């Protein structure tokens, strides 16, 4: 299946790394990041289903095969284990493969290669074999798609030692984090919030002065509650902060950016001030990344917490049909309800146990 696509990528007249900010969609910023990585390092090769002639079902690789050739932008047979396994072999020869998995729900055939090979080869070989693979995965819901096209599989990867996991929430980070991921000598699972592909913002096409890949970002400052989000929900969290401000509540929003390792120092510093933590993600709650954040922050800031951390997440059901996804996905109101909860204000569970 493909989701609705449009053609809003950077195109052939792409800004050069030194040209100053241009307004781009998130998808366009990814395209530009790929372009610059391909230009900069001949070891970079792109692989995936429909990424060449078609330019990807979301057009993230649009124009790249035309400009860099089928040798560097490779349409592959339809087999995800094959794609990732072949990428491993390319690493042995010094390449830096950037793999596109067409949708979140199609990464599982590659899971064995990712978990038993990509994540472990450096450790297995005491550092002799590097796996500088970037695995790009459009993820998350909210686009009204059919089954397997809206999942948030990050917790499978963040629990896998040896992998790095990052995600972007806006065009600038799309560009920056993608280029850093490709340049990184570790394998990186690069999660792209597909419902934000068409978000537009100015992008500085340069890595100069960019924050490190591991760093979280405080995107809204506030003294009352810390709200941790990443990927598609950062925009929702910002909206929640605006809505809360109307109620006189100052929400500090942190965009996690790197999901493994996490920059907990930034979260910790915030929680030490606010004493209250809300975490939101689309992925199912049970064993989701929110659990790790809640557990780790409780461990580190126990004395500072005024309330137990609250998680506002997808429910522990398989991703539902499109007409129900609004009930599955954390939205503004559910996040605000979580904020009320950590503040001890009336909320949906007032008077109930737990």
């Amino acid at each position, binding site marked *: *299946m493909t989701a609705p696509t449009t053609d809003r990528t950077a195109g052939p007249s792409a800004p050069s790394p030194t040209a100053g900010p241009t307004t781009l969609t998130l998808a366009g910023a990814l395209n530009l990041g790929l372009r610059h990585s391909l230009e900069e390092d001949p070891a970079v090769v792109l692989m995936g289903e429909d990424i*060449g002639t*078609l330019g990807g079902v979301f057009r993230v690789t649009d124009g790249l095969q035309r400009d860099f050739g089928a040798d560097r932008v490779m349409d592959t047979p339809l*087999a995800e284990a094959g794609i990732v396994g072949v990428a491993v072999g390319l690493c042995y020869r010094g390449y830096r493969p950037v793999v596109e998995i067409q949708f979140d*729900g199609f990464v*599982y*055939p590659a899971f064995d290669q990712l978990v038993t090979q990509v994540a472990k080869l450096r450790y297995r070989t005491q550092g002799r074999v590097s796996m500088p693979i970037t695995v790009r995965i459009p993820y998350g819901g909210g686009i009204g798609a059919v089954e397997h096209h809206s999942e948030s599989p990050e917790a499978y990867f963040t629990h896998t030692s040896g992998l790095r996991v990052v995600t972007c929430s806006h065009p600038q980070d799309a560009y920056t984090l993608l280029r850093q991921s490709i340049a990184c000598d570790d394998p990186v699972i690069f999660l792209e919030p597909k419902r934000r592909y068409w978000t537009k913002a100015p992008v500085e096409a340069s890595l100069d002065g960019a924050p490190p890949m591991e760093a979280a970002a405080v995107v809204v400052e506030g003294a009352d509650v810390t709200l941790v989000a990443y990927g598609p929900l950062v925009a929702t969290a910002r909206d929640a902060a605006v809505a809360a401000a109307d109620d006189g509540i100052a929400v500090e929003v942190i965009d996690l950016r790197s999901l493994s390792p996490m920059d907990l120092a930034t979260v910790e510093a915030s929680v030490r001030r606010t004493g209250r933590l809300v975490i939101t993600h689309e992925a199912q709650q049970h064993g989701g990344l929110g659990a790790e954040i809640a557990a780790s922050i409780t461990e580190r800031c126990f004395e500072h917490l005024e309330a137990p951390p609250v998680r506002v997440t997808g429910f522990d059901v398989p991703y539902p049909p499109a007409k129900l996804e*609004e009930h599955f996905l954390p939205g503004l109101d559910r996040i605000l309800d979580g904020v009320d909860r950590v503040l001890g204000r009336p909320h949906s569970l007032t008077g109930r146990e737990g």
Partner: protein
Amino acid sequence: MLRSHVHPTAVHERRETARTAAASGRADHDPAVRGDQLVQLLAPDGTRTPDPEYEPWVEDVDADRLVALYEDLVVVRRLDVEATALQRQGQLGLWPPLLGQEAAQVGSARVLRRDDFVFSSYRENAVAYCRGVDLTDMVKVWRGTANSGWDPFAVGMATPQIIIGAQTLHATGWAIGAVKDGTDAVAVAYFGDGATSQGDVNEAMVFSASFRAPVVFFCQNNQWAISEPVGLQAVRPLADRAPGFGIPSVRVDGNDVLAVMAVTRQALDRARRGEGPTFVEAVTYRMGPHTTSDDPTRYVDPADREVWAARDPLLRVERLLEREGLLDDQVTTAVKQAADSAARRMRAGCLGLTAPEPLSLFDHVYATPSSWLERQRSQYAAYLAMYEDGDGTAAQDGAR
């Protein structure tokens, strides 16, 4: 010696028909089918192609049956057009058209027994139609009101599989079970040319050969996996892959409903007689986009499409009927009415489908209740109850 021939072994000894090239030739100039012969019983111009091996398998197809097949083809095309329109009108989120593949689907599905079982991908809506799937049920998935539309056991067909190739293993398991149960029912796995690259499909061949499972692997080679031509998946005809696994295969003109019926029946017959799996490659063409979200102008050469348009599966049956004088006004009108009525029913059914009740989100995750999930359900119920309008709609903004 280096070999490219696969030698038949004693394990699966079979008659090797010394077949002439009678049925081939017509498609030989086409890159899609070059270098190999296709089973064909009905040429694009509506003439019958003699084939002593396969003719007997369709000798029961009399005038009535032929008209019925024609009606099927017209109806499923009409439904496909209607669903595409519904998508364009915003009533469906997505639709995967089967335009061009009607004969492959109708021909194979119409020779199945009620107790056979189909495991298909997302594109087999004509198969679903032939299995008796309710037209409203057919569009539920694409309207987004359900993750699947029908009861597999009521129609002998699993609901659409989106993970490419996964269903071939399910078919194999079902078939192994059928043997255990002592029935001669057969599982049919439908999948595409792209799917043949997936490990699952190859493992299904390994398992079915090993267990001599009564399964028909029905591959619709429609030349494309989204934008990727079949040549990227395979450097030889797909049907060549199966024999090496010990599975006989056949390459059929997938736009010839009679030939498809014949080869499928032969495969079913082998399976029922305990001779195990067969691989059918139905050579056809995806005349439309991959789905309504796709833009084939980016990768399809219009000239290719023209070549295939001339091989239209519906037109050739129409021509045959004309030739045989079976296409009078009455038939034409009846068929058109059947198609329009089906389209109307599908449309009405579609428009009547509304979003499920919010708390149904939590239904059917487990057979037996889970303490953990019951808690989530009740908490979400409390959350919804906070909102005045009671049905919780005001609370819903998850997707923004």
